[in-house]
C-alpha cells in the first residue's frame, strides 16, 4: 500500500491534506471479518461472520449488547471494540440512572464519535482500529449508525463493514428500498443472505455467524445458534414459502407478521433464482 514520510504520526498532515494514520486505522476495519446491519421502521438487525482461528478455539465476540435498546457489531481490532463497548455501556447506564430513561441512540453515537476524534488529534494516542455498527431504538424510531475510526459517523438504512463487505453492500443496495416496511423475519433473512454474500461460496452455517435483533417491544438480544440454523434452513430451500412455519420463535410473534412473511416469501422465492452468488 502507501508508505511515505507523513504517516508516522497521527498529528502529521500530508501535503494532500490527509491523516494517514487515521486512514490506516480504517484499513484495519476493512481487514476484520464482516459485520452487517439493516433496519426497518420498527426493528434493527445485526449479523456478522464469526470464524474461529482453529477448531480448538472459540470465536471472538463481535456483537455486544450495550443496553436493552442498543447493541453494537464491530469489525477490526476486537480489543478496541470491547473497550468502546464498555464505554458505551457505561454511558447508557449513567444516563439511565440519572434520567430513568434510555439514552437516545443519536446522542450515544455522537459521544462515541467525539471520543474517536480525540485519538486523531493527540500525538500520544492512536486512533481506535475498529468500526462499529450501532443499532438502537429510541423515541424517534429505529436507527443504524456506523462509527468510523476517523470520528465520523453516518446513519444508514443498511450497511456492511469488514472484509468482503462489498458483496453484502451490493446485495443490500438492491434490496434496501423494501427494508423500511419489512417484517422482523424478512429483515433477518435479508441479513443472513447478506452474510452469505460475504462468504464467497462457503456454506452458511449458524456456527460461523451471529445474529442479533432489537425492535419495538423486543430488547436487544443475540439469537441463539439453533434459531439461527433454523432460519438459515428456512430460506436455503429455494421456492418454498415455508419460512414462518419453520420458525418456532421464542419471542411472541403476532399472526399478522407470519402472514406478511408468507407473502413476502412468495415474492422473495423468484428472487432466489436471480439473487447472485456472482462474486
Amino acid at each position, binding site marked *: 500500500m502507501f508508505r511515505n514520510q507523513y504517516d508516522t504520526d497521527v498529528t502529521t498532515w500530508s501535503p494532500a491534506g490527509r491523516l494517514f494514520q487515521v486512514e490506516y486505522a480504517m484499513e484495519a476495519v476493512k481487514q476484520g471479518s464482516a459485520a452487517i446491519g439493516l433496519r426497518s421502521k420498527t426493528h434493527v438487525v445485526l449479523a456478522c461472520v464469526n470464524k474461529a482461528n482453529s477448531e480448538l478455539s472459540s470465536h471472538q465476540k463481535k456483537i455486544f449488547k450495550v443496553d436493552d435498546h442498543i447493541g453494537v457489531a464491530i469489525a477490526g481490532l476486537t480489543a478496541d471494540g470491547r473497550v468502546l463497548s464498555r464505554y458505551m455501556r457505561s454511558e447508557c447506564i449513567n444516563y439511565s*440512572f440519572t434520567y430513568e430513561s434510555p439514552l437516545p441512540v443519536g446522542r450515544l453515537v455522537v459521544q462515541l464519535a467525539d471520543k474517536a476524534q480525540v485519538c486523531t488529534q493527540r500525538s500520544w494516542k492512536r486512533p481506535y482500529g475498529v468500526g462499529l455498527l450501532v443499532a438502537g431504538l429510541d423515541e424517534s424510531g429505529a436507527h443504524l449508525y456506523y462509527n468510523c475510526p476517523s470520528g465520523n459517523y453516518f446513519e444508514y438504512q443498511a450497511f456492511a463493514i469488514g472484509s468482503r463487505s462489498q458483496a453484502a453492500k451490493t446485495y443490500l443496495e438492491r434490496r434496501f428500498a423494501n427494508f423500511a416496511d419489512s417484517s422482523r423475519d424478512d429483515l433477518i433473512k435479508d441479513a443472513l443472505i447478506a452474510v452469505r454474500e460475504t462468504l464467497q461460496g462457503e456454506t452458511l452455517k449458524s456456527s460461523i455467524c451471529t445474529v442479533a435483533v432489537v425492535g419495538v417491544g423486543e430488547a436487544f438480544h443475540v439469537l441463539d445458534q439453533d434459531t439461527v440454523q433454523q432460519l438459515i434452513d428456512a430460506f436455503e430451500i429455494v421456492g418454498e414459502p415455508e419460512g414462518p412455519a419453520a420458525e418456532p420463535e421464542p419471542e411472541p410473534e403476532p399472526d399478522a407478521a407470519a402472514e406478511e412473511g408468507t407473502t413476502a416469501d412468495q415474492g422473495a422465492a423468484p428472487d432466489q433464482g436471480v439473487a447472485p452468488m456472482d462474486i
Partner: protein
Amino acid sequence: MATTMVKENNAGPAQLLGPESASERTLYPYVTGTSVVALKYKDGILMAADMAASYGSTLRYKSVERMKSIGKHSLLGASGEISDFQEILRYLDELILYDNMWDDGNSLGPKEVHSYLTRVMYNRRNKFNPLWNSLVLGGVKNGQKYLGMVSMIGVNFEDNHVATGFGNHLARPILRDEWHENLSFEDGVKLLEKCMRVLLYRDRSAINKLQIAKITEEGVTISQPYALKTFWGFSAFQNPTVGAEGSW
C-alpha cells in the same frame, strides 16, 4: 446571623477562620413558600400555588411566582426556601440548554427532569447540605401525562395528585375523595380552588393571591394572579371572646 448559606467551596472565606470556621451548609430555611397542589386532568396537569414568600411569620413578599415552565414539556412548582428554588431553576436552565444544544429532535421529558431533580436533591441531602424545597414536577410528553414530587431529602414518587407541606394534610384528603380520571379543565380548576380555599382558611402562611398553571401537549400556561372568594361572616366570629374570661 452566625450561620451562612454559602454553597460549600474549598476557598470559602469562612475556611480562613481556622478551627472555629462557620458552617457553610443550609441549616434553616429563611424565605419560604407554602403549599403547592397539583392534579392530572384530561389534557394534562393542573397546578396551583399562591404567590406568598414568608420571612418566618411575616408575609414578606406577595408576588413570588412559585411555578415555572421547564423546557417544552414540564412545569415545576416549589415550596420551601425560595433562594434554593432559584438555584434549582439555574440548574435546570443549564440542563435544558445542553439538551437544546444537541439539536437532534430528542428532548428531556417530565420523567427525565423529575429523575434528575431526585438525584440532585438526594445528593445534596447526603452531603448534609440540602436544597430546602419540596418540588412538584408535572408535564405531558407524547400524550403521556406525568406528575411527581421530590422532597428535600430525595424522597420521590409519582401520583395522580400531589401536594407539598400543608397541602398534604388539607388538600390530599379532598383530592382522594373527589379526584377521578379524565377531569375536565373546569372541574379540575374547581377542585384545585376548593383545596386552595381550605389552605387559605387554615394555613397561616397562605395569602389570597394565587396562580393556576396548566400544562398540556401544546405547552404551559400560567394564569394571572387572582383571589378566591372567601366568607368570614360566621356568627361565631362576632364577639368571639364572649364567655372566655380574661380574653379580649
